[in-house]
């Protein structure tokens, strides 16, 4: 593990940093969002089904949604910050 020293290292680390920072931001977003919004009634209104998914499932999906969005922003930022091709 973690002995790569090739040129790919910087790229990999930028990607991992983006993932990590978006993880932190997504955690805070999840905390704030679900502190104020109970997802169960919302889902019940949006998709009328017989069996509602559990709150744990909805929280988890919400977290991954936030993580994906934050990762998109962070990843794009990291990508655009690369030195332009010479």
């Amino acid at each position, binding site marked *: 593990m973690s002995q790569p020293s090739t040129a790919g*290292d*910087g790229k990999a680390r930028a990607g991992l940093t983006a993932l990590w920072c978006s993880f*932190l931001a997504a955690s805070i977003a999840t905390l704030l969002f*679900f502190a*104020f919004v109970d997802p169960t009634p919302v889902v019940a209104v949006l998709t009328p089904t017989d069996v509602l998914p559990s709150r744990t499932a909805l929280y988890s999906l919400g977290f991954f949604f936030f993580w994906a969005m934050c990762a998109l922003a962070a990843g794009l930022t990291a990508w655009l910050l690369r030195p332009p091709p010479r």
Partner: protein
Amino acid sequence: MNATAPTDPSDSYYAAHQKVYPREVSGRFANLRVTAAWVLLGLFYGLPWLTWDGRQAVLFDLPARQFHLFGLTLWPQDFIYLAWLLVIAALSLFFFTAIAGRLWCGYACPQTVWTEVFLWLERVTEGDRARRIKLDASPWGREKLLRKGAKQALWIVFALWTGFTFVGFFTPIRELAGEVMAGALGPWETFWTLFYGFATYGNAGFLREQVCKYMCPYARFQSAMFDKDTLIITYDAGRGEPRGGRRRGTDPRVAGLGDCTDCTLCVQACPTGIDIRKGLQYECIACAACIDACDSVMDRMGYARGLVRYDTEHALQGRSGRVLRPRVIVYGSLLGLLVAGLVASLAMRKPVALDALHDRNALYRDLGTGEIENVYLLKIMNKDGKTHRFVVSLTDDQDRGHDGESAHRLDPARPVFEVRGGEVYNAAVRVRRAAWDDDERDGSHPGSSKLRLTVTAEDDPALVASADARFFAPQD
């Protein structure tokens, strides 16, 4: 040797990572660190199993949307307390950093604490620093396979247990344990157990000091809280230099040497792989392993301890240090105010709340006896730890009937509902009033009136909450 030049990473911002083999140390600060690890890990692994008032003492019950902290039950409406608590935690971090540097990093950070455990497991299976280096350099064989395999097995078991405990803070841990035993753990519980277990394994087993160096935001901004009176771990260059090896018993002054024997034990002990003698570096997590390492050498050489020690920059320059500085006073008083405010507002927090919703199906019902009936759905939230019986009463100050009596009345007159601690109880109450007389003045009537519903605990009149509601009547 290979003739081709190695890939030069110098055009990259990132230095190649070199594995750090921290040398085990013993001494005052190592004892303190191990004690802190025992206490903190004991809390982490033990707390979820503690029972209080018949339920898990500390449970952030996300599925039920309520937090239990011993006798206290917090609801989403109490989110402010959580936010407040986080602000207090951040300010404490600032406060202690200003006074004594990175105490958090050295003794209390989960990264440090779990790395400590993983290092210990590594030591148990692979031996001390020299053996570990040798083992890594040796070709794969039976012994290497056995030792590495044993280490991995211990790491994985410990990481899974950690992940399970973590989930146990959010879902009742005894039920969770039952589900694990029965092999019926829910998909998301399984996922988060594995997720957190993997995070523990990766962070404490492999990434270690890299988390502090590359991932931790606090490590980057903590220096903003520092000043020249902050306690840091520091090498007394004035006393140590010029460094150099010498035989025991040699008078360093005669040999033209300082007290540093250049044994490099401080470097070997460092979990982040830095040389403290080069001065304060942002990689230093202030774990004080180098102090213990150096003290042991000073003891052996018969020199005074403290060549590497906790000290302030001012003291090193021979100036007197101050503990009370403006920044310490500001952080300290803010912290004091916030803590006092939190305690006061928790103490004054009303443990009962009431919502009154008008029945959605029918606005009113004409009873045919000259009376109109409205139905209200009460949500009685008992945030107290205990069960209470709540009596519903009604007031309508602005609306008097012909005889000066309250125009509205409850039916039955004194509804009582028993609500368990930490429960939201849905109750329906009926309210009646006489139909408005159409002959009043211009022959019309307002069609609705205001009233106020109140719940009071039978055993504690201080447990009281009210909600306003509107009474509707036919408009003709």
